[in-house]
């Protein structure tokens, strides 16, 4: 058991996600930064779909009531065992009675706490991920609360030695430029050429409304090509006949404040979508904080597939490193 003494700002149980139910309106949920989540599981020898805790901005205080192996990966929210700082991206042994807590967030927005065996909550529609809006999955369908007791499961594949530390080259670097790659498309035909250009030229600043559902950005108003609204769409120029929203798609309700739809987002609706964040850069998006600035970069499908391949190669290298 792991006892939650303080839940942190928003700590949820997440695994790879609830995949394959998009057609009934069920978003995938799951870890927002898949790379850090996956590496966390590898560092404790878990099945790669084992459930971890996703910790945002402010970490929880957890009391372990049994011995366990853990790893903390992701942005930089430095972990402490019994008040002593311990490194991230490393396998640690924690003893019954030990307390795990976290320092202020230094870089990024989220970290993942992987526990050997995984966090054991009921599997709902093939996943343990928490989807708070509908109370599905995770710890009673909600973020952790003080007093919760988390069971440790059996999703373990192999032993990983204490002190196994991920080489620097495989760790994420958050000192970068916050460039988020997107593929232009969907209903981008609705934007004026000038607005399309401006979307990629300027910096967008992340508002306080930036969570697992989506990120809202401040910048400037975007404009739509004038048309008579098609039947059924609604009267605003940003309205379309309600359609499906890809995960990572960016919409611009009324032309103000673009919104990137993320893991817990709505699966469809009636606003113009203009582009989609490529899958590898969703991880990066998840580590951008409120008040930070991002720039969107337009790439083609081949570049997106290449990025995806490199990402998978890196995960494979980490797998091999851990197996050594």
């Amino acid at each position, binding site marked *: 058991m792991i006892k939650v003494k303080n839940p942190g700002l928003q700590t949820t149980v997440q695994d790879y996600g609830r*995949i*394959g*139910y*998009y*057609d*009934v*309106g*069920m978003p995938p949920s799951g870890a927002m930064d898949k790379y850090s989540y996956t590496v966390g599981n590898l560092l404790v020898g878990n099945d790669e779909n084992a459930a971890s805790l996703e910790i945002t901005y402010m970490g929880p205080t957890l009391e372990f009531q049994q011995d366990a192996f853990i790893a903390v990966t992701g942005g930089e929210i430095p972990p402490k065992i019994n008040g002593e700082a311990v490194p991230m991206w490393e396998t640690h042994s924690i003893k019954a009675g030990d307390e795990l807590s976290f320092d202020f967030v230094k870089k990024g927005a989220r970290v993942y706490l992987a526990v050997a065996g995984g966090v054991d909550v009921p599997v709902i*529609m093939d996943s343990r991920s928490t989807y708070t*809006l*509908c*109370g*599905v999955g995770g710890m009673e*369908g909600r973020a952790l609360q003080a007093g919760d007791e988390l069971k440790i499961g059996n999703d373990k594949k192999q032993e990983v030695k204490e002190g196994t530390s991920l080489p620097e080259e495989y760790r994420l670097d958050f000192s970068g430029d916050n460039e988020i790659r*997107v*593929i232009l*498309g*969907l*209903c981008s*035909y609705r934007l004026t050429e000038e607005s399309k250009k401006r979307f990629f030229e300027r910096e967008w600043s992340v508002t306080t409304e930036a969570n697992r559902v989506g990120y809202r950005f401040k910048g400037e108003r975007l404009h739509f090509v004038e048309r008579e609204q*098609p*039947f*059924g*769409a*609604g*009267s*605003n120029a940003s*309205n*379309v*006949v*309600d*359609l*499906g929203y*890809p*995960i*990572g*798609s960016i919409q611009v*309700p*009324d032309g103000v404040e673009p919104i990137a739809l993320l893991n817990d987002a*709505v*699966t*469809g*609706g*009636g606003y113009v*979508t203009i582009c*989609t*964040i*490529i*899958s590898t850069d969703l991880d990066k998006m998840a580590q951008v904080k409120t008040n930070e600035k991002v720039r969107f970069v337009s790439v083609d*499908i081949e570049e*997106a*597939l290449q990025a*995806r391949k490199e990402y*998978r190669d890196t995960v494979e290298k980490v797998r091999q490193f851990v197996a050594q």
Partner: protein
Amino acid sequence: MVPRYEYGGDEFIFVELAEEMSLEVNFQAMAITKQLKEDNVPGIVDICPSNASYMIRFKPEEIHPDDLISKLKELEKTVSLEGFEIKSRIVDMPILFEDPWTHETVMNNRDRHQDPNSTDLEYAARINGFDSKEDLIQAITDYPYIASMIGFVPGLPWCYQMVPREQQIEVPKYVRPRTFTSERAFGFGGAFAVIYPVQGAGGYQLFGTAAAPIFENEQRLHDFKDSMTFPRQGDLLRFRSITMDEYKKIRKEVEDGTFRYLIKEFTFTPQQVLENPKAFSDDVLGRLYA
């Protein structure tokens, strides 16, 4: 217009068959996605038909997006509505119009609305040329709807009335979306009626509240044994205006776990609907209450 085939990043293909809504295009999206399901194409994760478009989620390691697009373009050419059968259910959906809960939300959000001086129902009646809100309610409840898309949140049905275009009700969405919409609210936006499965944000005009749930994460009720979500694409839904007394009776049945929707299994073809929507609708209502 020529359908648009668009990448939704590296994991989705979005196909916009038409910019405007019609029964024909909705049936076309249904027919193409049904054929795609039957073809069992490797690498496909989700097939999401929607109103005048559809979306596919796939694993690019198993199928290259451009190969998938070729496959979809092929289906666009070969799939015909001729002989396409929709296995459907006709369902009675009891709605309490002008209920106290959505009325409170409506009144709290006048600053976000086109017309701060009337209710959503009064406004919608006026701009659609009805003499009174009662006439609008009658028009909404006289003919059944097809669940043309499921999504937004789990189980939310977009419902499109099976009447000729000139009879369709159309309303704008709120000027600024609300941050609160009560659970089971019955709303209208564009040409679509919806029921909000859970409490949350929303931008549709609010007319009432459904008595029975359409999403149940505990899966207590009979109609939710197989799935947390009730509506399916292609369902034929009849919204029926009920009194507060019937509303309370249904709520009690829901709480007791005994509530069951009135459902009739029914298979139909697009031609039946398109040739004579009025006769089709009358037939549907006849079967439902037979």
